[in-house]
């Protein structure tokens, strides 16, 4: 929805700092870790000592420890299983399936006492071998890893299967001049939010109501999940979000520690807080899906893409989270990034005794894009074609309706590519012959992602209540929420723009499910788009209310009015009246109305059909990156030197926050490419700390040259699209392509750490493996 834009935008498009940045940088913002309630107890969770075992448990000694107020095990609680497939017992009974399995929890007067009590709990295990390789889990003789699995897909260890197809695969294969087949392997990485997982639960026995201070990024879905787990009525649960120290998708699911904390509060009648240690955060919070992608793709002799055949095998871990649904997005990259005539896709999520994966910024897309863009380079090589030309030739175009039914009303794909190709051309030309210790290379990659939500849940909508007070201040009560990405500031800017008031007169209330209207949550790069449109709708209704009163006060005929500098003015500017005065008159003179409006925005996207076809998002975002690396052939070290990043953002709403999203996303993508991996050995996490889990630091940052491509989406607020996930999606692919370009090697696996580079350099590259049959039952 576009508001009429009669005047030049004054606030939108300006580099406005985050409205609460001052509080955050002063240590005054209140995060979950900073909450302390009267009488609050400290909770701690006992987790499995083996990734696969039967066990018995005895808490008698622990319960005697002075200062312990409550202990729960599976025997003490009556809870439903949780998770997207309801296959996850909150507290495990008699058997554990992964090293993060919760088997008991303690609430005590201090954290130290709670931890001491955990050590006094006696657990006897009968360890079992366990299954850590998804291929093994699929073997005919392998029994069910998760006893709650529904087993709907022919093998008890298959949690989920997605199949998709368009076009005539056989015909397109037949007419392909070149074909490339590869197997790609993508690692498990951690969100590594700087604030660890946390929750404070406060159950009041007197009212039967549960108050949760939770860092969830989907408060209304969370409320329902919590109600299901605890067998309560959802509306008896109030979710308040403190300031959230990082989300990136990690807080899309509800995890066992949350209902456990609630259960401890119910049992003790006191508030209980659980804070993860960093080690616990690495071991017991979700990861990006590790997966194998077999990709066969072809091109005709002109270099046009003919087909893609894809099989994805995802290590689900022991339980199923929303992460199992990442194929929604993965298949989109394969079906619709660049024009392609035929696509056949199959993804299988398999149970293992590894830690379970969740959702992570990009939602499967970085993995898919890595495979796709690596193979595009290989196709170009096979065709002796320039790697830039083959991409330009096949780029998506405005007006395209893809094989999957995505409708690109606007599309900046070709512009993004052009942009980064031109910007990097000089650097490319300056690269000398491949000789000597240090070698340079440049790699390209693009990406496609939903840019206006994704219609997966029953509603992809967002509600807004807007209120003007007698002092001319505005309160925006938005269903959407802020997880650090700056959406709150963007909403405040929109209200300031439309109402002609300074941004410090706009207050955004968005942290309390008892107050705010429905919203599906932060995901799918939807917040600016969906919550923005919702706010603009509410403002439109509010202005209708103000119009009659303002015209009456100015003594003019009813007409459209302008809002500027705290005044409401006639179109010709001849007359004006102060906004606050209009509100007062509206309130205090007949017919006594509130300056309040409510609006619910539901994007015009549609549900996909059974074959996953349909225009699932309100709009689509595109991006391209060109990245220059320098590789040390002695050490295998990859230094990323320059990155040219172009992204179709629709319209720049706030260049400062946008640049922050781009740079932050880019560096997450670069970490995924070169350094990060949560390493597991037989179901145990072996690098659960920042010393061994290699996060990038300030010294690793390359020059990042960013160019926003504006395509002015007719559906977007002021033409804007979602931006949050895109910047990390093509990065690993572009870096891998750059390293391969520099060294003339082939890489099919991440991260590209020095050892991997050296192995590839010395001839131990990936071999071409055919599709393994039967991976998807």
């Amino acid at each position, binding site marked *: 929805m576009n508001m009429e834009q009669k005047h030049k935008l004054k606030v939108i498009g300006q*580099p406005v*700092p*985050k409205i609460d*940045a*001052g*509080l*955050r*940088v*002063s*240590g*005054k*913002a*209140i*995060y979950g*870790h*900073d909450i302390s309630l009267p009488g609050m107890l400290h909770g701690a969770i006992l987790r499995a000592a083996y990734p696969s075992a039967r066990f018995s448990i005895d808490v008698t*000694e622990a319960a*005697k*420890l002075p200062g312990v107020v409550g202990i729960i095990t599976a025997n003490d609680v009556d809870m439903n299983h949780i998770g997207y497939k309801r296959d996850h017992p909150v507290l495990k009974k008699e058997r554990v399936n992964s090293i993060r399995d919760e088997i008991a929890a303690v609430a005590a007067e201090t954290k130290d006492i709670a931890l001491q009590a955990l050590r*006094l709990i006696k657990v006897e295990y009968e360890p079992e071998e366990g299954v850590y390789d998804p291929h093994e889990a699929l073997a005919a003789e392998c029994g069910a890893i998760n006893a709650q699995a529904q087993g709907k897909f022919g093998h008890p260890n298959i949690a989920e299967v997605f199949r998709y197809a368009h076009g005539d695969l056989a015909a397109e294969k037949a007419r392909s001049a070149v074909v490339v087949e590869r197997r790609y392997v993508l690692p498990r990485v951690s*969100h*590594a*939010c*700087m*604030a*660890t997982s946390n929750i404070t639960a406060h159950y009041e026995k007197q009212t039967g109501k549960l108050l949760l201070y939770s860092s969830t990024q989907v408060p209304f879905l969370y409320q329902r999940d919590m109600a299901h787990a605890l067998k309560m009525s959802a509306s008896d649960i109030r979710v308040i979000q403190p*300031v*959230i*120290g*990082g*989300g*990136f998708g990690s807080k899309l699911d509800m995890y066992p520690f949350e209902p456990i904390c609630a259960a401890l509060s119910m049992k003790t009648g006191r508030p209980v807080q659980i804070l993860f*240690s*960093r080690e616990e955060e690495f071991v017991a919070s979700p990861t990006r899906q590790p997966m194998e992608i077999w990709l066969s793709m072809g091109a005709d002799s002109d270099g046009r893409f003919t087909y893609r055949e894809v099989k994805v095998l995802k290590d689900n871990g022991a339980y199923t989270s929303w992460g199992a649904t990442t194929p929604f997005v993965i298949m989109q990259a394969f079906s619709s990034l660049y024009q392609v005539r035929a696509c056949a896709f199959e993804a299988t999520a398999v149970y293992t005794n590894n830690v379970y994966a969740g959702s992570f910024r990009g939602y499967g897309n970085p993995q898919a894009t890595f495979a796709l863009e690596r193979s595009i380079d290989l196709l170009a090589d096979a065709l002796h074609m320039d790697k830039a030309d083959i991409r330009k030739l096949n780029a998506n175009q405005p007006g395209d309706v893809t094989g999957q039914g995505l409708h690109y009303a606007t599309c900046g794909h070709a512009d993004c590519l052009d942009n980064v190709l031109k910007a990097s051309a000089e650097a490319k030309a300056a690269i000398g012959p491949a000789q000597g210790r240090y070698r340079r290379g440049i790699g390209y990659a693009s990406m496609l992602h939903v840019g206006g939500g994704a219609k997966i849940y029953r509603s992809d909508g967002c509600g807004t209540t807007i209120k003007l007070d007698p002092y001319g201040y505005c309160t925006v009560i938005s269903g959407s929420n802020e*997880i*650090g*990405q*700056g959406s709150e500031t963007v909403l405040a800017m929109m209200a300031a723009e439309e109402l002609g008031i300074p941004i410090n007169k706009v207050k955004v209330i968005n942290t309390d499910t008892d107050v705010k209207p429905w919203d599906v949550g932060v995901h799918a790069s939807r917040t600016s788009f969906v919550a923005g449109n919702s706010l603009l709708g509410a403002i439109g209704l509010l202005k209708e209310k103000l119009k009659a009163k303002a015209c009456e006060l100015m003594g003019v005929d009813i007409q459209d009015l302008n809002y500027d500098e705290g005044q409401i003015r006639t179109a010709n500017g001849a007359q004006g009246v102060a906004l606050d005065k209009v509100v007062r008159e509206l309130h205090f003179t007949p017919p006594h109305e509130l300056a309040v409006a409510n609006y619910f925005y539901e994007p015009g996207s549609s549900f996909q059909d059974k074959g996953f076809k349909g225009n699932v998002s309100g709009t689509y975002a595109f991006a391209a990156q060109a990245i220059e690396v320098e590789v040390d052939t002695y050490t295998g070290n990859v230094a990323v030197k320059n990155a040219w990043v172009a992204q179709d953002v629709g319209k720049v709403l706030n260049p*400062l*926050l946008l*640049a*922050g999203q*781009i*740079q*932050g*996303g*880019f*560096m*997450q993508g670069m970490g995924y490419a070169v350094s990060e991996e949560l390493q597991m050995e037989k179901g145990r996490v072996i690098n659960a*700390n*920042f*010393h061994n889990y290699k*996060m990038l*630091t*300030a*010294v690793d*940052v390359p020059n*990042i040259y960013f160019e926003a491509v504006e395509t002015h989406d007719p559906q977007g607020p002021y033409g804007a699209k979602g931006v949050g996930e895109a910047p990390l999606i093509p990065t690993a692919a572009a870096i891998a392509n750059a390293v391969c370009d520099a060294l003339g090697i082939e890489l099919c696996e991440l991260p590209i750490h020095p050892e991997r580079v050296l192995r590839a350099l010395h001839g131990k590259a990936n071999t071409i493996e055919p599709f393994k049959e039967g991976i998807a039952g």
Partner: protein
Amino acid sequence: MTEHKKEEERIEVRFTLNGQDVDCTIAPMQMLLHLLRDHFLLKGTKPGCEEGECGACTILVNDMPVNACLYLAANAEGKRVWTIEGLGNGQDGLDEVQKQLVAHGAVQCGFCSPGMAMAIKGMQLFQQRTQQVLDRAAIQKWLEGNLCRCTGYVHIVDAAERLLQQNHG
């Protein structure tokens, strides 16, 4: 469980905290992070890892940045300790370090921000003391111990660079 636990040993420690003299009785192994957060209720110093790897808990001790999570409170004896709460006592409550961070969009989730601000404050004081000019590469090196998952560091380094240039020029 032993019936009567030995009375835990306690020691006394005095230091200046954000310009005020303080004294308190602590366990010998108490880390400064917990003393600040739990005893003095200064919650601005953040616990990101409590193992010295993330810098979220950065404070200044005698004007040099340290990780409060690995700093024994006992070692603060007689020293000057500054936390984020001690910055920005002017009208708008923001020190010039914080103003630069805000203006450069260097704050997203903000969990790293107090630690970043203190690390940069330490840089500024170091530059003033030594009359050395810290260039961009030196700033990046100085901030190597401060992790940020949100911003990609660019705006943070920009803010520090601007601040140090201003101070110098």
